[in-house]
């Protein structure tokens, strides 16, 4: 079963690696966006099965993007996973209260990334 993933990160290298890593799983179809605004433009047209959001991005950050998604009835049930280089527990708790499905810490292991995503949305 195909799993459509939207990966949002302002770092092009990480976007590319994540796309490659997730692409190792034949069921994953990966789209990327370089900012919150670009992601919203994509989401206006497509509804993915899961969205992976970088937390710290210039302009609209990950938590804001999540809020905007939850405001949209079409997107309110899309599972969201944060990917962050800041893995403080209090931040993780905040992400949970923001209705995120989970958090993946950077640096992530590219070979197991798709497995982590599958586990979080299962």
């Amino acid at each position: 079963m195909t799993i459509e993933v939207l990966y949002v990160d302002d770092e092009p290298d990480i976007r590319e690696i994540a796309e490659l890593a997730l692409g190792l799983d034949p069921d994953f179809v990966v789209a990327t966006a370089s900012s919150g605004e670009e992601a919203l433009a994509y989401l206006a047209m497509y509804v993915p099965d899961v969205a992976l959001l970088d937390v710290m991005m210039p302009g609209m950050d990950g938590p804001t993007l999540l809020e905007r998604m939850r405001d949209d009835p079409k997107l309110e049930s899309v599972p969201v996973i944060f990917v962050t280089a800041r893995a403080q527990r209090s931040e993780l708790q905040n992400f949970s209260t923001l209705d995120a499905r989970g958090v993946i810490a950077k640096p992530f292991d590219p070979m197991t990334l798709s497995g982590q995503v599958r586990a979080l949305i299962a």
Partner: protein
Amino acid sequence: MKFRPSKVWLRRGATIATLALVPLILVGVFLAMHAEFRAVAQLRDVSERTDAKRDLFADILIAHADVETGVRGFIITADDRYLEPYNIALLRRESLFSAIEDQGEPEIHAALARLRKLSDAKLANAALNVSDVRAGRIRQARERVATGNGKALMDEIRRELADLDAHEAAKLAQLTERSSASRAMLERSVTAMLIGLALLLAMVTMIVNRSFRMRSEAMDRAERLSDRQKALFAGTVDGVMLLDGRGRILRMNPSVSRIFGYSEEELLGQHNMVLLETPYSMEQSMAWLQSVGVAGKHGAGRRQEFTGKRSDGTTFDTEVAISMIHGETEKNYVAAIRDISDRKRAERMKTEFVSTVSHELRTPLTSIGGSLGLLEGGAAGPLEEKAKRLVEIAKSNCDRLIRLINDILDIEKIESGKMEFDLRRMQVGPLIGRTVSSMNGFADQHGVTLTTVLPPWPQCVVGDPDKLEQLLTNLVSNAVKHTPKGGEVEIFSTHDGGHVRIEVRDRGQGIPTEFRSRIFGKFAMADASDSRLKGGTGLGLAIAREIARRHGGDVGFDDRQGGGTVFHVDIPSVSAERTDGRTDLDQDLPSVLHIDDDDDTLAVVASAFEGKAHVMTAHTLAEAREVLNKSDVAAAILDIGLAYENGLDMIAELRKHREAMPILTFTAYDDMRTAEGVDRVLIKSRTSVSDLVDTTLLLVGERRRAA
């Protein structure tokens, strides 16, 4: 406490004793003089009486001589005129004898009786002669005179009178001699007393002089001290204010003006609240001041962080150390105010820096590590053997760099108290199982086998599973790295007193003696090549020990019999589950007293502690006292701004209940940073309830371990 009289008291005592002797001596002199005056008066009296008696003796002799002379003349001339002295003597004789006898001196009664008898005989003899002459018997009278009887009587009378006179003279001489001796004694005594008095007065003068000199010196010293204090007061960089009992500013040093931008005239008489950006009411401020102790007494006084407000309305971080002093008529307070903006800025910069490091270093490492991982995993197609080896080296070092960054961040978080612990009841067996499972791959790479030896019964602790796994992973990783290929690392769990002890036993080279004292230090490695060979960061043991200590435990090591090292972790244990499915944990849970006047807050906090502690709630200090009377409370959480009360007022009673009790404040006062007698100040707006729970349980664990 042993009483040691001070020099001042000794001096005072000596002066008083000396001054008390002066009147005693004067009284002594007066009594002696008085006695002497009486003795002299008595002597004079006796002397006068003796003289009078001796005069009487002389008069008696004269009277008898007159009788003798008169009668003889009358015998020769028969002229009555010659009898005139005789007649007078006859008249006086009785009065003279009566005068002597009236003085009633027994010792001369016998002599007087003899004298009277002789006198009677003499007068009888004279009377016969007078009678014969008058009768014309002149020849018979002359013959009677010629017998010499009259002369013999006269001689006898003269002798008796001479003896009496001599007796009186001797008596007077004896009395005079005694008086002289007494006077000499008196002179010596009075002289001695006067010399003593002079010495005492000299001593008193000396003591008084010395006292005056010392007083003068003390006043000089006090003046110098006062000058120094004034200089300190005026010159200290911190703002220093003297407050009255209501918190109004009585005095201030120039730094207060410099810090807050107000002139002295503007601030004197104002309440200190004008300098604070604070939600406190005047009553709360008063209550707060009332709870401040005397400086330096059992560490009393209070230190707290506030947000200060300058005259232009800008705010800044400030730390206030305040102590109560006893003023002339009421309590006063000395408040030292320090502008800690720079310190706070540095702390924020450090936090920001750490955050930046965390993000900015991890971001490129994500790319590097991700790329290498993909290459290594064959995502870009199969690699040649040499290329594969190079990618492995690059990946391994990238991982090491990530570990180093993580360890540095962990150390920073631990040292700044920002490492968060999710404490919960957990079993040790599964913790060891997870650690071994995750470390098996690493051990395989080193050709080392991991084995576990666990007791058949469950062992439970209150801990953060992730942090304890991190701790164990560090120890197991070290053990694996230091165990020769083909060797074995044992993870052994046992019970030691009130602790669960986990041992990690290796067969390495052991720990060099010179390295033992610094093995838990940061970047500690036995030799410089160690990190390169073993891929460690030198922070693992420092982190492990901190994690253990934050759980109320500790990490240590011993030499292993037969070679190698045993690292052991001790964590306070809690009882395991019972066979009936219920847990003993409920009984082992610490009791936490939470004082807050808001029902919602009490409910939320109680809910967060569920399964971790018994929470006993109180809306007022009176309710809190009831709880303390009925229950054994292990920790207390206080709200400060209770309705009409200050939660901090409970601190003394709480300490009395249990001296080492962790006391936390959970308050809405954003300004509060620290409070005297309080272990942690948590601000409601900045602290999650789970953090409150974690912090409380952590402190309880620490105190239990200390106990």
